[in-house]
C-alpha cells in the first residue's frame, strides 16, 4: 500500500506525533507539580495562620487569668479577714477556666481558697517539700508559672504563683491552678480542620495530641528513638519559641513513608513558652488537587488522542493524495500513450496517403505517357515515308485512337480531381429514366453490335422520374454498359432493370460476363485498380471509370455496389433519390 516515500512520511509524522505527546505530558507534569507546589504553599500558609490564631487564643486566655489574679493581689491594702475567699469565689464564678484559686500565707500554709473541694486546706508547702516556687516568687516578687505537673487528681495542671506584697511586706502568694485539659478542651479539642494538632511545653513535654500518636506528659526530646530526627528538630524549634513551617516523613500504617507538613506557633506567657503544632500529611494536600490531576490527565489523554487521530488523518490524507497523484500520473501516461498511438496511426495513415498519392502520380504519368509513346513512334515512322498506304492508314488510326484515349484520360482525371476535392457540381433536374436509358443504350449500340450482345431494357412504364444531373447519369449508364459489354463474351446479354423503394429507385445493370473474383470485388472502385492489366488494356479503359461513377452516385446521396459470380456474370446496383 505504501511506497518508500510514503513510509518515510509516515515515520516523520509518527515521530512528530510522539514528540508532541511527550511535550504535552512533560508540560502537564510540570504544571501539575507547579500547581501542587502552589496549593501546598497556600495550604501551609493557611495552616500557619490557623495555628497562630489558636496560639493567640490560648495566650490571651492564660494571660487574662494571670491578670485577674494579679489585680486582686494588688488592690488589697491588707489581707482581708476571709483571706480573699469572696474575691476568689467571684473570679472563679465569673471567669471560667480555673480549677482552683487559693491563698498561701507567708508561712507556706494554704489557708483559704475556692472551691474548697478542690484544695487541701492547711497543707503546708514547706512541710511537704514543695516550697521552691513559693520561695522563687518571694524572692523575685514576680508572678511565676511552674512547669506542668501531675496533680493529685492525676491530671496535668498549671500552677500560677502570684506574690502578695502589702506595703512592701511579703504576705504569701495567691496560687491558682488551671487544668491543662480545660485549656486544651477549650481551644484544641474542637479543632476540626484536616491534620492533627498538638501542644508542647518548653521542656518538650506533650500536653495534648489529638492524633493519639504522641504520648501525653512525655518528653520526646530526650527519646530520639521514637520519633524521627526531623520531627525532633521541629520540637526543638518549637520550645525555643519560634514560629514556622517544617516537613518530616512518618511511616504510615501500611509501611509507606508519608511526607507531613508541620506548622508551629508559640504561646508566650510570663516565664513559660508553649507551642501549638499542626501536622498534615501531604496526601491531604494531594487529595485537594486530585481533581486538578484528573482534569490534567484527561486533558493529556484527550490531547494525545487528538494528536494521534490528527496524525492518522494526515497520514490517510497523504496516502490518499499520493494515490490520487499516482492515479493522475497513470491516467496522464495512458492519455499520452493514447495520443502517441493516435499520432502514430495518423502518421501511418499520412504515409499511406502519401504513398497513394505518389502511386497515383506515377500511374497518371504512366497512363499519359503510354499513348504519347505510341503516337511518337508512329509519327516518326510516318515521317520516314517508306511505308505502304495500308500501314500508313493503320499508323494514322493508331495516332487518332491514342489522342482520343488521352483526351478521355484527361477528362477522367479532371472528373476524379473534382470528385476528390468535393468541387464536382451537379445540376439536378427532373429526369425521365426511360429517356436516359435509351440515350445510353444508343451510345453503346455500335459496340454491342460488334460483339453481338443484346441489351434488354426491363423498366416499368410507370417508372417515376428522378431528380438528378442528367448528363452525369448518362455518363454512369454509358460507363457501366461499356464495362458490361467489354467483359461479356460475344453473344452474351446485358439487362437493365429497376426496383422501386419508398424514397429511392434501385437501378441494376446485369451482364453475363466473366465476373469478378470475390477478392477483387471490394477494390474495383479504387482508382487505377485493374484486375488484369492485359484484359483492361484489351478493352482500353483509363482505370478511373468506376471511381468516377461512384463519386457521381455518392455525391448525389446514392449508393453503388456490385454483385458478381465469376464466369456467370456481374450486376452493378446503384440508387437514385426520387
Amino acid at each position, binding site marked *: 500500500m505504501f511506497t518508500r516515500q510514503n513510509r518515510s512520511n509516515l515515520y516523520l509524522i509518527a515521530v512528530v506525533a510522539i514528540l508532541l505527546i511527550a511535550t504535552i505530558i512533560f508540560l502537564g507534569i510540570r504544571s501539575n507539580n507547579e500547581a501542587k507546589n502552589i496549593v501546598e504553599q497556600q495550604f501551609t500558609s493557611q495552616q500557619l495562620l490557623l495555628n497562630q490564631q489558636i496560639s493567640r487564643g490560648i495566650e490571651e486566655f492564660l494571660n487574662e487569668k494571670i491578670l485577674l489574679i494579679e489585680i486582686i493581689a494588688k488592690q488589697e491594702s491588707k489581707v482581708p479577714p476571709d483571706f480573699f475567699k469572696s474575691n476568689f469565689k467571684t473570679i472563679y464564678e465569673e471567669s471560667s477556666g480555673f480549677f482552683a484559686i487559693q491563698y498561701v500565707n507567708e508561712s507556706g500554709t494554704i489557708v483559704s481558697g475556692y472551691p474548697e473541694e478542690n484544695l487541701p486546706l492547711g497543707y503546708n508547702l514547706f512541710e511537704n517539700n514543695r516550697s521552691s516556687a513559693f520561695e522563687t516568687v518571694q524572692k523575685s516578687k514576680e508572678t511565676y508559672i511552674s512547669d506542668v505537673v501531675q496533680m493529685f487528681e492525676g491530671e496535668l495542671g498549671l500552677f500560677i504563683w502570684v506574690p502578695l506584697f502589702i506595703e512592701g511586706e511579703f504576705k504569701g502568694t495567691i496560687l491558682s491552678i488551671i487544668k491543662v485539659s480545660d485549656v486544651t478542651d477549650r481551644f484544641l479539642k474542637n479543632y476540626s480542620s484536616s491534620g492533627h494538632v498538638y501542644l508542647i511545653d518548653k521542656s518538650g513535654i506533650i500536653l495534648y495530641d489529638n492524633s493519639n500518636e504522641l504520648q501525653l506528659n512525655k518528653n520526646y526530646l530526650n527519646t530520639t528513638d521514637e520519633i524521627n530526627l526531623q520531627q525532633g528538630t521541629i520540637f526543638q524549634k518549637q520550645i525555643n519559641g519560634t514560629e514556622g513551617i517544617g516537613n518530616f516523613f512518618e511511616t504510615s500504617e501500611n509501611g509507606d513513608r508519608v511526607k507531613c507538613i508541620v506548622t508551629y506557633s508559640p504561646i508566650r506567657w510570663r516565664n513559660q513558652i508553649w507551642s501549638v503544632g499542626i501536622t498534615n500529611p501531604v496526601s491531604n494536600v494531594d487529595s485537594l488537587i486530585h481533581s486538578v490531576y484528573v482534569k490534567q490527565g484527561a486533558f493529556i489523554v484527550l490531547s494525545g488522542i487528538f494528536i494521534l487521530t490528527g496524525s492518522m488523518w494526515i497520514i490517510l490524507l497523504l496516502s490518499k493524495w499520493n494515490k490520487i497523484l499516482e492515479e493522475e500520473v497513470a491516467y496522464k501516461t495512458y492519455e499520452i500513450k493514447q495520443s502517441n498511438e493516435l499520432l502514430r496511426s495518423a502518421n501511418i495513415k499520412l504515409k499511406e496517403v502519401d504513398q497513394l498519392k505518389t502511386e497515383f502520380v*506515377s500511374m497518371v*504519368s*504512366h497512363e499519359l*505517357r*503510354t*499513348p*504519347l*509513346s*505510341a*503516337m*511518337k*513512334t*508512329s509519327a*516518326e*515512322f510516318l515521317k*520516314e515515308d*517508306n*511505308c505502304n498506304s495500308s*500501314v500508313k492508314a*493503320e*499508323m494514322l488510326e*493508331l495516332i487518332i*485512337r*491514342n489522342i482520343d484515349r488521352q483526351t478521355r484520360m484527361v477528362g477522367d482525371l479532371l472528373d476524379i480531381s473534382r470528385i476528390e476535392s468535393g468541387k464536382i457540381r451537379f445540376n439536378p433536374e427532373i429526369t425521365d429514366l426511360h429517356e436516359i436509358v435509351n440515350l445510353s443504350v444508343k451510345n453503346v449500340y455500335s459496340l454491342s453490335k460488334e460483339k453481338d450482345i443484346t441489351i434488354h431494357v426491363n423498366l416499368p412504364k410507370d417508372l417515376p422520374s428522378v431528380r438528378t444531373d442528367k448528363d452525369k447519369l448518362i455518363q454512369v449508364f454509358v460507363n457501366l454498359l461499356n464495362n458490361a459489354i467489354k467483359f461479356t463474351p460475344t453473344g452474351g446479354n446485358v439487362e437493365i432493370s429497376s426496383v422501386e423503394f419508398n424514397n429511392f429507385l434501385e437501378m441494376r445493370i446485369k451482364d453475363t460476363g466473366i465476373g469478378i473474383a470475390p477478392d477483387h470485388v471490394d477494390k474495383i472502385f479504387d482508382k487505377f485498380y485493374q484486375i*488484369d*492489366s*492485359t484484359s483492361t*488494356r*484489351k478493352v482500353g479503359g483509363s482505370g478511373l471509370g468506376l471511381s468516377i461513377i461512384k463519386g457521381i452516385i455518392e455525391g448525389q446521396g446514392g449508393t453503388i455496389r456490385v454483385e458478381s459470380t465469376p464466369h456467370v456474370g456481374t450486376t452493378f446496383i446503384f440508387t437514385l433519390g426520387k
Partner: protein
Amino acid sequence: MEQEQIDKEIFRLVEQKPEITNQELARSLAIPENVVKERLQRLSDTRQKILIVDDELDALIALKRALESDNYNVVEAADGLSAIKKVKTEKPDIVLLDLMLPEIDGFEVCNRLKSDPLYKHVPIIMLTAKGEINDKIEGIEMGADDYVVKPFNLNEIKTRIKMVLRRAQD
C-alpha cells in the same frame, strides 16, 4: 505437334530429300499444307529477329511496323511469362523489353534470361519511362545491354538496336 518438333522434322525431311514438295511434307507430317508453308517461310527467313515485349498494344504495333519496314523479323509478347517463352521458341537476336509488364515485370524477365546459360547471350534493350530512370542502373546491373527512355526517338532506337546487334556478333 510442337512447333519446334515440326521445324526439326521439316528440316530432317528436306535434308533427306531436297526437292520435296510442300504437299509431300504436309502429308508425311500429317499437318495442313499452309502450316508447312508458313513454317518453311519462317525457317527460310534470314532477317534478324527482334522480340518486342510490351503490354501496350498500340506502342508495340507502331514500333513493330517501323522495325519491319527496316527489314527486321519482329515477334511480339504482351507480358513477362510469354516473353520468356517466346525467347525460347523464337530465339530472337535481340529483345526490346518494356519495364512495366503484368504478371512479372521487365527486371524479372531480364533476370531470368540472364541467369539461364542457354539464353544469357541474347542482348536485351530495356524500354523505360522517364520516371523510372533511376531503375536504369538496376537494369544494367541486371545484365541489360542498353536502355532507351520512353517516349523514344525512332532513329535512336534503331541505332541502338544496330549497335547492340553488332556488338553481339563480334
